[in-house]
């Protein structure tokens, strides 16, 4: 087996059996262009991320995030232009507020924060795109598949015993 060159690859080898499915919503005008540039520059990043192009981060209905996590994705990334740089001027400002509240709501219900991440990546930030994908993939690999989040029997039993007291 070749010696792993980076911590990332070492991690990958350790979890060889688990290839996460990660969905990345990328806005057409910034992050998708950034991803394109990363490709043109032949940057390497894990192929576990599936890029879904959307017109604007403001187009990403937060419920899509939950649906993706329920329908087989192990992590979701939502990306858009830097605040102030939105092609439609304001879309990402709205997205930011929505995602801030929705992310907290999902975490309140017990979702590990790493499974739902949001990042602003401009069209020229190919490096940031690559680094983000590497980092998110690492995070999700550490967590394992969604099924790994299932609470243990002990926690469920303790909860049932305390039924009614909140």
């Amino acid at each position, binding site marked *: 087996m070749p010696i792993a060159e980076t911590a990332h690859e070492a991690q990958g080898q350790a979890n060889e059996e688990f290839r996460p499915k990660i969905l990345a919503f990328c806005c057409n005008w910034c992050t998708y262009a950034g991803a394109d540039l990363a490709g043109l520059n032949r940057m390497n990043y894990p192929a576990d991320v599936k890029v879904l192009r959307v017109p604007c981060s403001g187009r990403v209905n937060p*419920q899509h995030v*939950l*649906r993706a996590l329920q329908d087989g994705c192990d992590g979701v990334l939502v990306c858009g232009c830097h605040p102030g740089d939105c092609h439609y001027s304001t879309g990402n400002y709205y997205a930011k507020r929505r995602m801030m*509240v929705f992310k907290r*709501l999902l975490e309140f219900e*017990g979702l590990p924060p790493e499974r739902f991440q*949001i990042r602003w990546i401009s069209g020229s930030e190919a490096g940031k795109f690559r680094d983000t994908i590497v980092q998110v993939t690492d995070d999700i690999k550490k967590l394992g598949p969604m099924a790994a989040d299932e*609470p243990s029997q002990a926690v*469920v039993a303790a909860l049932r015993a305390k039924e009614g007291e909140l």
Partner: protein
Amino acid sequence: MNDATQIVRERATALLADGTVAAVVGWAAGRGDHDRHVFVARTPEEAALLVADQYCGALAAKRVLSLLDEGKIALVARGCESRAVNRFMADRQLKRDQVHVIGWPCPGMLDPATGDALKRCTECQRRNPVLSDEVVGDPVPEPELDRFAELERFEQKTPEERRAFFQDMYESCIRCYACRNACPCCTCRVCFVDQERVGWMGEEFTADQARYYGTVRAFHTGDRCIECGECQRVCPQHLPLMLLMHKQVRDIDGLFGPYPGGGMEPEGPDPLRTYHTDDLEEFM
């Protein structure tokens, strides 16, 4: 008969008799002891059936929206109903001149079975109507309480415990949509759940679907919620839905606040329907 009932009946009778309004929305006695339900009075005779006492647990406001074709509607409104009226106006469901608000400073409601204060009333921050055309009775002192106390207790749990808790909760939900139908914020003509599947729970009913519904419903109303607690009151499974609502209200207050809660003002913008360019940045 208590004073409020007496005055509400008199006022309703007068408003109906002189044609100011086509109907009065309030409460009437049901069959059981202390059983009260939302009631629409269209004639002076029906107005004599109205009741306004400590057992009027239901939020009457949403009934107004289905009556607008009949003309101007009067609503007996406590703090929560008046906030719902503001909510309707901000959501363009109602114009101010379509409703005559009979304000009723709220004494706090009791559970007819146990005589205890209703949960939603123990978390209320606004008993006096926020708007009215006339008021029945004297203003009451506003309660000074911490409506987030339950939330803060709950947040002591670990993420794994919360995960188990909500899994349990969503397994119990029967997707009757009572929480949506009772909510004064839920006024979309076509709800997102019905865009995907019409009717009640399908054969493929799962906790995941209940979570999708429950979480997204809570989020859709999160920045408009008037914290009336009606969703939780009507839930036949007694699910603690206000945890999700209080969580969002408190987050919004902390992140974009100060935020007094939905329905305090007749106009928006609601916190998630606006932005500031200098909003907190955590996604860089």
